[in-house]
């Protein structure tokens, strides 16, 4: 049964150092409350997987020294430009970067979702992404003739961390069309969700909400976190806070500036949550 925890901090406590941690893209709700809680608890050696790209979530964790490795198809603050702590960490070789491409991340998670050891995928051949991935293979399509195709090993994250508009007391989490969260929950060993609210009715019993709901079966624990995606947005609830992200991008140009940012906006829990 899904645990109902008191806060994002309780979730952060359950995510171990060294975990392979899958995080959603910024067009889906992101658990920034959970990310800040991980920074506060001083998480270490996390291996981040973006599904399939991310930005501010990785930035905070990398800048705070929580990260050992990143696998991603892209790391960007969007309109706020390059992710400065990510860029700095790459240049200073503080993290191991495994460049990927969006459909490869989706496909490798789908392999894990289906319990198959690998997934074939078109494209990629001739790219340096493939050339630099010694964990990927090119093999022949057994139904074709001289038809090489990339084989991607399944990725099974230890933990997925998501945010959602609502959940219910049975641990069902409504994600709407942000269906990468469904894939993440299916593919991961454990999935944690912060949510804006916990509703009184069962999300699976209402035919309107069930189609956009991850069954509690896949959800390890949930915790309420109002405005838990801020300064990123939640579709239909609140917008991305462009102004705050611009402030971040400005401050995080240097490590000192980043530290000042986290002192003010992350470490003082009351400031953000």
């Amino acid at each position, binding site marked *: 049964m899904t645990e109902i925890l008191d806060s994002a901090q309780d979730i952060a406590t359950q995510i171990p150092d060294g975990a392979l941690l899958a995080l959603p*893209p910024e*067009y*889906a709700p992101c658990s920034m409350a959970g990310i800040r809680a991980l920074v506060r608890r001083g998480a270490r050696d996390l291996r981040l997987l973006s*599904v*399939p*790209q991310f930005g501010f979530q990785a930035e905070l964790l990398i800048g705070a020294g929580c990260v050992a490795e990143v696998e*991603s*198809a*892209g*790391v*960007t603050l*969007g*309109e706020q430009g*390059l*992710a400065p702590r*990510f*860029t700095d960490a*790459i*240049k200073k*070789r503080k993290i191991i970067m495994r*460049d*990927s*491409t*969006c*459909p*490869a991340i*989706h*496909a490798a998670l*789908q392999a894990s979702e289906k319990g198959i050891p690998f997934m074939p*995928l*078109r*494209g*990629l*051949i*001739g*790219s*340096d*992404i*493939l*050339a*630099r991935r010694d964990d990927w293979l090119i093999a022949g399509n057994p139904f074709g003739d*001289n*038809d*090489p*195709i990339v084989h991607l090993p399944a990725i099974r994250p230890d933990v997925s961390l998501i945010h959602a508009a609502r959940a219910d007391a049975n641990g069902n989490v409504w994600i709407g*069309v*942000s*269906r*990468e*969260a*469904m*894939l993440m929950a299916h593919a991961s060993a454990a999935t944690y969700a912060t949510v804006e609210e916990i509703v009184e009715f069962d999300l699976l019993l209402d035919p309107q909400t069930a189609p956009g709901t991850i069954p509690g079966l896949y959800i390890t624990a949930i915790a309420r976190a109002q405005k838990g995606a801020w300064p990123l*947005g939640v*579709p*239909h609830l609140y917008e991305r806070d*462009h102004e705050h992200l611009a402030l971040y991008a400005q401050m995080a140009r240097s490590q000192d500036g980043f530290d000042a940012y986290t002192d003010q906006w992350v470490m003082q829990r009351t400031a953000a949550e």
Partner: protein
Amino acid sequence: MSDARTEEIMIAAIARMLSGLSHVTVGISSPIPGSAALLARELSRGALRVSMLGRTSSPSFTDGGRELFDCAAQGRIDAFFLGGVQIDGQANINLVSIGDPDRPKARFPGSFGSAYLYMIVPRVILFRQEHSPRTLVPKVDYISAPGVSAPNIYRPGGPYALVTGRCVFYFIKENECFRLKSLHPGQSVADIRRETGFVFEIPETEAIPETEAPGAEWLKLIRGPVGDEIREIYPDFAARMFGGA
């Protein structure tokens, strides 16, 4: 003379390449192609379907981030757009890093879906506003996605054109190189030669035409309904281009 900005000339040039298509998709970080796709949709009177990633108020897809890639593989996407930190003469694109990737001089966001979509979508339109020897290079430092492939590689897709702030190139697959198609207002062939780091073809038999600038009606669309729609995803771009929200 048109009062169109360079971005608007690029938008119009790209929109023309989408004429007659059924479905184009726009990825992230693509305000110029996004505007072009929306303009083309307006001009098509709704015959062109435009799917835009990141537009949460009206999702084009309902099966998560993978659907774009699956949809492309099903042959349901006619055109897509890719930029590049560097683009070379064989249409290889680099979205990752400058210098040795293990010790990069500069690091960029990453390849996103390019390594896949470039090989799958029939008409991939490359765009890069900065047209200089720094961006259009003889050989990219990192191949996010290759411009050409060996004959036995499954590749229904590939480069169609390259639209920059100075000109339009078409990609000639048989020759594995770009050919100069049109010059934006104020640009000469000599300008393009000087500012382009790769070798490209110039048709010898004819003068290079000027890229047609958008007329008043098109500009009205670009600055009106197109701008309003693009603002939801790219507020900064929209503010810079079209003024405050």
